[in-house]
C-alpha cells in the first residue's frame, strides 16, 4: 500500500478492510444437529440464478411440495429447510455448500443441478460425513458411500433407448451433443449400446460430433454435416437454452424430415413451451412423464398443478423422491437421526414407490434401478406434451 496513493484513499481502504470482517462476524452461529423429536436441518443446494435456474427452481419446488404435503415433517421430525444457490457451477456451488455443511450443519444435503458441482462438493461431504441425496447431476465418483441419487446416471438414457433406435431406424444414425462432461456421458451411453447392438453411426469418423458448450447458439453449420452424412436418424442430448435453439433450428433446416431421438431433457419442462411446434413428433427417452398412470403420480401431478403452472418435470419428480427417501430414512434412523445413521438407513430402504413407478437404489452405484419410457411430443389438449408411447429397458446398477 506504499505507492503514491492519495491520503483520502487510505482512510477509505481502512474502512473497507473493516468491512470484509463484517460478514465473518455476522454468521458465527453454528447449531448442533437435531436431537430426539426436535427439528432437523436439511440443506438444499440448487441453481437459483444463472443458466440452469429453471432446473434449480423445479428441484427446490419439488422438495418443498413433498414437505408441504407432509406437514413440513420428514421421518416425524419438523424440517428446517436451508436453501442455498448453486449458481452457474462449481465456483459458486462450493462456498454455498460449505455454508450448508459447516455453518448450518445440516443433517443431510439434497439437490445440486450440475455434475461438476457435485464433484466439487464431494470432498466436503467426506470431510463432514454428511449424506447427499442428489436429485440431478451425477459425475463419476470413486467412493459413493455417502452419495445417493434419485435421478439417473448420465449414460443411462442413451443406453435405455439404443436398442429401440436400432430396431426402428433403417440405416445409420448421427450422434451429436454438447462438449462437456454431461454431454460426453449422455452420448457415450447411447453410442456404446447402439454399436454393441449392431448399429452404425453416420458421423464421418464414427465418433460423436460435439459442439462447444455453452457457446454454441447456432447449430445450422452442424446440420449441413448431418445432411451430407446421409443419416436416417439423429440422436442427441441438449438441455436448457441450447435445447431450444437446437430444436427450433432443426425444424427449419434441411434435415427437418430426419427423425430426431433424444435424451428426454431436450423437450422437458419449460424448454418445450419455448420450442413450440418445432418440437412436435420428437422422440425422447426419460424415466418420467406426467401422464404415467399410477396412484402416486396422480397425487403428485394434482398437488403440483395446485401450486405451479404447468406439469411437473423429471427434475421436480426426482427432488420429490429425494424428500421421500429422506422421509423414510430419517424415520428409520431412530430418535436421534445423526448424518451417519441417516446414511446407513438410506442403504436399507429397499423398494421405493414413486410417481415414476417403483424403483430402488443400486447397491453399487447408489443410483436408481428404474424403468425408462419412450415419449413423443404430441398435442395434449391445447398444449404440446411428452406423451408416453412405450416402455423401454429397465436400466441401472
Amino acid at each position: 500500500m506504499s505507492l503514491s496513493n492519495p491520503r483520502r484513499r487510505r482512510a477509505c481502504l481502512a474502512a473497507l478492510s473493516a468491512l470484509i470482517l463484517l460478514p465473518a462476524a455476522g454468521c458465527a452461529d453454528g447449531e448442533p444437529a437435531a436431537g430426539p423429536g426436535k427439528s432437523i436441518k436439511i440443506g438444499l443446494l440448487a441453481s437459483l440464478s444463472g443458466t440452469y435456474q429453471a432446473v434449480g427452481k423445479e428441484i427446490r419446488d419439488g422438495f418443498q411440495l413433498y414437505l408441504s404435503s407432509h406437514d413440513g415433517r420428514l421421518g416425524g421430525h419438523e424440517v428446517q429447510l436451508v436453501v442455498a444457490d448453486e449458481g452457474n457451477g462449481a465456483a459458486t456451488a462450493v462456498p454455498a455448500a460449505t455454508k450448508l455443511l459447516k455453518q448450518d450443519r445440516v443433517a443431510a444435503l439434497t439437490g445440486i443441478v450440475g455434475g461438476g458441482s457435485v464433484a466439487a462438493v464431494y470432498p466436503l461431504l467426506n470431510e463432514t460425513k454428511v449424506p447427499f441425496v442428489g436429485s440431478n447431476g451425477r459425475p463419476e465418483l470413486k467412493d459413493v458411500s455417502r452419495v445417493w441419487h434419485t435421478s439417473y446416471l448420465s449414460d443411462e438414457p442413451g443406453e435405455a433407448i439404443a436398442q429401440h433406435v436400432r430396431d426402428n431406424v433403417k440405416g445409420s444414425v448421427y450422434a451429436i451433443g454438447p462438449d462437456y462432461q454431461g454431454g460426453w456421458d449422455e452420448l457415450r451411453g447411447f453410442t456404446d449400446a447402439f454399436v454393441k447392438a449392431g448399429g452404425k453411426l453416420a458421423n464421418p469418423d464414427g465418433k460423436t460430433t460435439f459442439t462447444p458448450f455453452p457457446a454454441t447458439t447456432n447449430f445450422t453449420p452442424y446440420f449441413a454435416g448431418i445432411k451430407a452424412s446421409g443419416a436416417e436418424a439423429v440422436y442427441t442430448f441438449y438441455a436448457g437454452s441450447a435445447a431450444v435453439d437446437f430444436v427450433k433450428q432443426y425444424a427449419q433446416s434441411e434435415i427437418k424430415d430426419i427423425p430426431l431421438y433424444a435424451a428426454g431433457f431436450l423437450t422437458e419442462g419449460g424448454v418445450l413451451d419455448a420450442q413450440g411446434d418445432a418440437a412436435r413428433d420428437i422422440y425422447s427417452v426419460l424415466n418420467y412423464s406426467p401422464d404415467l398412470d399410477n396412484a402416486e403420480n396422480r397425487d403428485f401431478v394434482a398437488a403440483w398443478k395446485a401450486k405451479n403452472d404447468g406439469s411437473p418435470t423429471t427434475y421436480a419428480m426426482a427432488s420429490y423422491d429425494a424428500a421421500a427417501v429422506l422421509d423414510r430414512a430419517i424415520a428409520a434412523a431412530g430418535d436421534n437421526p445423526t448424518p451417519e445413521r441417516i446414511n446407513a438407513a438410506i442403504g436399507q430402504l429397499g423398494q421405493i414407490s414413486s410417481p415414476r413407478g417403483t424403483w430402488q437404489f443400486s447397491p453399487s452405484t447408489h443410483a436408481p434401478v428404474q424403468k425408462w419410457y419412450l415419449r413423443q411430443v404430441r398435442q395434449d389438449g391445447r398444449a404440446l406434451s411428452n406423451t408416453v408411447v412405450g416402455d423401454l429397458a429397465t436400466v441401472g446398477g
Partner: protein
Amino acid sequence: MAADLGFDPYLVPAVDGVAYGLLVFVAASGLVLCFGVADILNLAHGTLYAIGGYTAAALLDGGWSSLVLALAVGVAAATTAGALVAVLLTRAARRNHLTQALLTFGLALVGGSLLVSAFGPDQPPVRVPAALDGSVVIAGHRYAAYRLVFIGVAALIAGLLHLAVRRTRAGMLVRAAVDDAEMVAVLGVNPARVRVGVLAAAGALAGVAGVLGAPIIGPGPGTADVVLLLSLVVVVLGGLGSMGGTLLAALAVGQIQTLGVALAPSAAPFLLFAAMAAVLAVRARGLATARRAA
C-alpha cells in the same frame, strides 16, 4: 461427407453466416457509437438487446401487427434504458473506462436479474408472423424463411445507418465528435447531452436488434452475455469506432461461427477467440512499429 463433395454442403452455412453476422452487426452498431462518440465502455449493452428480445417474446403472437407493436415497444424500452444508463453514467463519465466498466457491469447484473424475475428463468417462446415461420428451398437446400428475410432487413438497417451517419446533421456531429471532440465542444454542443443522445440511440439499435433477432439469438438468462461478448469482439476487431470496420468484422465473425464450424468442427471451440487474438496481436504489432517510428 460421402454424399456431396465440393462447395454444396457449405452453401447453407455460408448464407447463415451472413444472417448471423448481420445480426451481430446491428447489435454491435450501438456499441460502436458508445465507443467512438461518447467514449464509453458500456457493458450493459447486451442487456439492452435482451430487453428487446423479451419484449418480442412477450408481444409477438404470430401476426404482422404484433411485430410492429413489438418493434415500437422494444425500441422505446431499450432507448429509455440506454438513456438511463447515460444518466447514471454522469458521475463516472469523466473517469477512466474501468470505472465506467464497473458501473455498467453492475447495471448489467441488476438488469439481468430484473428481467429474469419479470419474465421467468425459462427461455420464452418467440412467435414470428406465420408467413415467416417456415422454411424455403434455395438451390436445393432448405433454409429458415425468417433468417432469409432477416438478411434483407438487416442489410437495409445497415444502409440506413450509413446514410444517417453520412447525411444527417446528427450524423455529422457524430463524425465530428469522433474526429475532434474538442472542436465539437467548442461549437457549443453540450457533451452531457451528446452522451445521453448517443446512449439512447445505441439503446434503440440494440432494441431493434433484440426484437428482430429474437428468433435467432432468443431472450434468456444468458442472452445478454452472449450478445455483449460478440459485440465487443466485433467492435474491437472493427477498429473501435468505425461502422464499416465493425460491419466487416461482424460478417467475418458470422462466417467463422458458421462456415468455419462446418469446415473444421473439431476446432470449433477455439476458432473465434484464436482468430481474434491473432488478428489483434498482429495489428497491435503493426501499430507499435508505427509508434516507434513516430
